[in-house]
């Protein structure tokens, strides 16, 4: 299972970066419930903010994790049906919003947002359970990335924003575990290793 997207040239605009993911922005954001106003946490960050350069680097690492998750959801969603398909569509929308936010913040910090790789190796899941396990794996990878990053970010508002995404990924993971018949919230402290 390999996700592929078209090759892209130059432009580093947020829109071009997101469109390069090949997800069909309008439909995905609609499924994420973006008709209702999504409350994004405000962040005070610009290129003059102390630590902006290091933060831009960290945010780019988180963006890489989001790109992987987006690729996994994009490849997996058409292979699912019923409740898992509806869940996957909503969660894909969330991941796109996260990526959009990270790209915006990287650019505000004076950095250059990395582009999505042309493809990701997603293994060879064939059954619904295997596909959901792939998505759970993607969420756990994001959890460990965000938990490692959040304490290192400079402005408090950026720490809080990273933690707010971390909490959403935790919710995603809980739902996939529930669908897989596992204990959905196995630990009191969420780290991504559970």
């Amino acid at each position, binding site marked *: 299972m390999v996700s592929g997207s078209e090759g892209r040239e130059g432009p580093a605009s947020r829109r071009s970066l997101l469109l390069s993911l090949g997800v069909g922005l309008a439909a995905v954001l609609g499924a*994420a*419930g973006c008709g*209702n106003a*999504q*409350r*994004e*946490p405000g962040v005070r960050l610009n290129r003059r903010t102390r630590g902006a350069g290091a933060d831009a680097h960290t945010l780019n690492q988180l963006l890489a994790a989001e790109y992987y998750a987006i690729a996994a959801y994009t490849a997996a969603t058409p292979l699912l049906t019923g*409740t898992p398909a*509806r*869940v996957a*569509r*909503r*969660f894909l*929308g*969330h991941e796109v*919003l*996260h990526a959009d*936010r990270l790209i915006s913040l990287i650019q505000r910090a004076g950095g250059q947002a990395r582009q999505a790789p042309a493809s990701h190796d997603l293994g060879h899941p064939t059954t619904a359970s295997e596909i959901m396990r792939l998505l759970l794996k993607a969420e756990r990878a994001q*959890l460990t990335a*965000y*938990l490692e990053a*959040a*304490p*290192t970010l400079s402005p*408090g*508002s950026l*720490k*809080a*924003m*990273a*933690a*707010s*995404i*971390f*909490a*959403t*990924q*935790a*919710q*995603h*993971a*809980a*739902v996939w575990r*529930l*669908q897989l018949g596992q204990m*959905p*919230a196995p*630990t*009191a*402290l*969420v*780290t991504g290793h559970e």
Partner: protein
Amino acid sequence: MSRPAASRRELLGGILAGAAASTVRASSADAAGGAGGDDKLLATLLAVERRLSSTYHRVLASGQLGVIVAPEVSGFLGQEQEHIGALEQVIALRGSSAPSAARFEPGGPLETQSDALDLLLGAERMAESAYFGALSKLEDPALVALAAEIMASEAQHWTLLRALRNPGNLAATVPAAFVTGSP
């Protein structure tokens, strides 16, 4: 029929909202306070967790939860108690003493399982808000990590309570891309 949000806030007696607001006030007053500010934030978060735990006790004691829902909710209470233990431990390690627990009685009638789950959903949401506010002010990286881990746990509880409240609409159990505790 669900109660309007204002009634749920009344059921909580405004206590959790006050605790969340005091997190912001305390942290603003100590914006440059470093360790002192972190200590006050920890104390506030501990108070929030204790009130959340009291709310779970109240709900479980009400007898309104069905035989399938009650064990799930009891499991969440166990995790809230672990949150309390973690905060008390880190406060002690920092050389502070944990404030004594104030008596808190979550008010209002609980007449149905839906009432009970709505009360818990509101309480978890307020806990998320308190942690989100604290995370923008905490300075010690270890405390940022701990607060993030606990806030994520509260978010999971909210999602699973929502699934218990409205089974059959699993996609709606994660309604937003960013957890902030805002409705």
